């Protein structure tokens, strides 16, 4: 079993610790429909209550919400034009005029970080969303139908997992070429195996449950069973994995930008800003410090929330 953290290793750790917790779930034919729905809603309500008591998780959520607001309002709240160059004021230390200093082209670092929030959230959320859709679909199909389909899907997943994440991303980017869209695609592919495996695992246990058997006996079509009964009961670990993956995806994307594969200048991107920060480290340490700090705060916020979510959805793991 070969896997990789930060990328892959956390992935697996998550797969191990997040266990599907099927609940009695409503089916169209269930005579206890009303009660079943209450139980299901209860799981989420309980989780929400536990989550709201977890101060660290709430703090994470507040920071994430603040980042979303900043990303949405960035063009309106930046003090300066983030790509406006002015060599007269290049490499200025933080001051009241430029709170976080200026870069080697005289651009305002704070403005670039604020605008970069959009890219950062985008490269965190979009690849994970893509990976979730594709991975969950593959996992459902593999787990539910088993046999040859399962074999093919899982062998492809095994091969994807055989590449350390950066190598896989580099290989994909060698084909697609540099650029932020391609970073999104590469990071999405890196995450597909994690979702596929966790969903397949859940499906394997859920499909043996009586309510699935009952639905099948009633002659319900496979797609309906998968969506209404199997998927509905496999959501908890998927959501936790997604939340914890977003922070990591931001780090991966920044890493790809850092080695020159991501956002192309002059657009503002925290990873790219770190690259020039490294070049001017001796004379202008703020150039590299602040964008990295922004990454750390963002990733930490997602991780705090994700950890809290995991504890809330599965209290046994506390």
């Amino acid at each position, binding site marked *: *079993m*070969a*896997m*990789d*953290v*930060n*990328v*892959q*290793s*956390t992935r*697996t*750790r998550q797969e191990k610790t997040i266990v599907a917790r099927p609940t009695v779930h409503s089916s169209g034919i269930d005579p206890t429909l009303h009660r079943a729905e209450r139980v299901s809603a209860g799981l989420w309500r309980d989780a929400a209550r536990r989550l709201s008591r977890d101060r660290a998780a709430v703090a994470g959520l507040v920071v994430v919400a603040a980042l979303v607001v900043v990303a949405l309002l960035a063009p309106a709240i930046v003090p300066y034009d983030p790509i406006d160059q002015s060599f007269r004021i290049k490499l200025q230390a933080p001051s009241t005029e430029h709170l976080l200093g200026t870069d080697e082209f005289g651009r305002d670092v704070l403005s670039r970080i604020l605008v970069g929030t959009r890219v950062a959230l985008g490269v965190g959320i979009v690849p994970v969303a893509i990976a979730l859709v594709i991975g969950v679909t593959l996992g459902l199909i593999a787990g539910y139908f088993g046999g040859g389909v399962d074999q093919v899907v899982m*062998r*492809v997943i*095994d*091969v994807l997992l*055989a*590449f*350390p*994440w*950066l*190598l896989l991303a*580099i*290989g994909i*980017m*060698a*084909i697609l*070429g540099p650029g932020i869209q391609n970073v999104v695609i590469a990071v999405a592919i890196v995450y597909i195996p994690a979702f596929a495996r966790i969903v397949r695992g859940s499906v394997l246990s859920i499909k043996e449950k009586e309510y699935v058997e009952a639905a099948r006996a009633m002659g319900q079509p496979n797609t309906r069973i998968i969506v209404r009964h199997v998927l509905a009961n496999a959501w908890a670990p998927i959501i936790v994995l997604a939340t914890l993956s977003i*922070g990591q995806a931001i*780090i991966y994307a*920044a*890493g790809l930008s*850092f*080695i*020159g*594969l991501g956002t192309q200048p002059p657009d503002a991107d925290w990873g790219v800003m*770190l690259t020039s*920060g*490294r070049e001017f*480290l*001796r004379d202008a*340490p703020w150039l*590299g*410090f602040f*964008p*990295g*700090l922004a*990454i*750390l705060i963002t*990733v*930490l916020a997602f*991780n*705090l929330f994700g*950890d809290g979510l995991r504890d809330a959805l599965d209290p046994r*793991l506390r």
Partner: protein
Amino acid sequence: MTRYVTRRLLLAIPVLLGIMTAVFLMIQLIPGDPATAMAGDKGSVEQVARIREELGLNRPLPVQYAYFLKSAFTLNFGDSIRTNQPVAGELRQFFGATIELSLAALVIALVIGIPAGVIAATHRASALDYGTMIVALVGISTPVFWAGIVLIYILSFRLGLFPISGIIGTGIRLDRITDAYVLDSVLTGNWLAFRSSVHHLILPAFVLSTIPMAIIARMTRSSMLEVLGQDYLRTARAKGLEDRLVVIRHALKNALIPIVTAIGLQFGSLISGAFLTETVFGRPGLGRYVVQAIGARDYPAIQGTVLVVAVGFVLINLLVDVAYAAIDPRIHYA
């Protein structure tokens, strides 16, 4: 046990073939003609023709695949566009340095991560526990390349404690055997080179160790908490064993098994992290090699590195799995 090892070996074959196929497809999928891509922008007409011949590009695809497999097994990845040297030779030269950096980081992660996790677990819900876990979470959330930049600034530029970049002091002669600098200086008994290469290794290895260290600390804590609640530990305490002995001999020993798995899972991220760390610290190694190759659209070098590292990664995991089967008597592998 033998049966398990054999089965595990057989299972690795389709994965290895899958890797080969993926890398083969990678070159096929690059927009434009593979031979032109492999020869680079400055490649001559003759070079393109020779590469076309070597790759069998005027043959049907399955034959091309066979050609590719043959060159992969003979480690013939062609010449680097950037340096004009055979890629296989360059990979061999950089392999040792990257492995040395990764292993050093793993050792640091274990030496700090395991005790930190044990302390957090034995002082559950105390300030010590919360503090350790907050540090661990920050560790997981910190990009290695940023940690590198910050530490270089503080420890190297400001305090002058460590060299700013490189792998060994300039002007120090070292006979290369394995191309792992610290190991080579030990093998040749060159103490000057040893001191210098260790000095150059400490900071990058520490930076690279932060994420695995944090993960190992978290794993150790939760694994220890699980074990500490077991009956046999109460028995051990009840029979009057010293607390420290109970924790180390009875609890940690059993808690270690999931930790060993976690360590096995760290290799992939270690290698990825090592690539970024080498870039930050300007250390020669596979990572810096492939990053430079990307900048130069040096496809033979990218292809060779991806293939060699992925295969190496599968083999390392194979070893970990086998070692795991050997140390854990409770699990029977069918």
